[in-house]
């Protein structure tokens, strides 16, 4: 193991830490760069033993597209939920749905669950222990629950699968 890999067990994380540090201080002065670099070396050294192996990002471009797709969905769904909330309450028909998921890795499940929560109208509530079912609370349930299930599976889950190619 060379000295560089020993000093920087997680190069990408170190770089990100430095960037975040500089962004937080909105300054590119030498002092902040040095301080940020020191933090970027020390923090990953302390955290490296805690690392759990995670699947690698296979297609970064798809990931960017996914982020923008989710952003668009958030805006559209936000308007729908806003109308729903301001309108009469009896029109709201909430419900739970259990969504069968095929993802194995915890990171991917976390991304899926977070996306589900961030898009208005749906909220991930619980994951079954065998990681096969995601319980989702839906604010306004369509008459056919399959609609919600297929939307989440086809739109988000398949995209995540594609990004990580598993």
């Amino acid at each position: 193991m060379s000295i560089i890999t020993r000093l920087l067990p997680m190069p990408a994380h170190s770089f990100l830490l430095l960037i975040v540090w500089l962004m937080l201080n909105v300054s590119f002065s030498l002092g902040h760069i040095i301080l940020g670099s020191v933090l970027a070396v020390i923090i990953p050294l302390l955290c490296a033993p805690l690392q759990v192996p995670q699947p690698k990002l296979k297609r970064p471009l798809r990931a960017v597209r996914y982020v923008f797709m989710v952003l668009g969905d958030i805006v559209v769904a936000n308007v729908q939920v806003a109308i729903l909330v301001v309108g009469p309450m009896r029109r709201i028909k909430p419900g739970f749905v259990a969504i069968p998921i095929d993802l194995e890795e915890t990171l991917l499940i976390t991304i899926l669950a977070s996306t589900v929560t961030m898009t208005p109208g749906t909220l991930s509530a619980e994951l079954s222990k065998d990681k096969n079912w995601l319980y989702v609370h839906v604010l306004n349930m369509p008459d056919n629950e399959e609609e919600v299930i297929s939307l989440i599976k086809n739109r988000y889950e398949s995209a995540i699968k594609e990004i990580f190619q598993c």
Partner: protein
Amino acid sequence: MSFWVEVIVSILLIIGGTFVLVGSIGLFRLKDVYCRLHGPTKATTVGLGGILLSSMIYMSHHNGYLSIHELLITLFLVITAPVTAHILAKAAMHHKVKTMEATRNSHMVTTAREQRPPVSDNDAGSS
């Protein structure tokens, strides 16, 4: 400050403010915990997004350099908001909080609480 910057900043602030207001109204009007969780998570997305974007434009214009603090705030919000909502929903399940009468599949709370796979609708009546 030029006219167009003012217009854009104002529009973004109004959009952001409206959505934060709607989120709060949702928190007040909706009937059970799970539905109420929907309000704030929505307000944080578009509501705060709009406000932070307008802050970014205003500060960048005011200071003369790109202000990117706000991007970090957005990043941290996007990472933490779903987790808090998830934990709150989980806590509500464990406290056996009442759900709205109209809630469909409320029997799923029982299996979800124990992190078991759902039972099909047919066995739900017997169990």
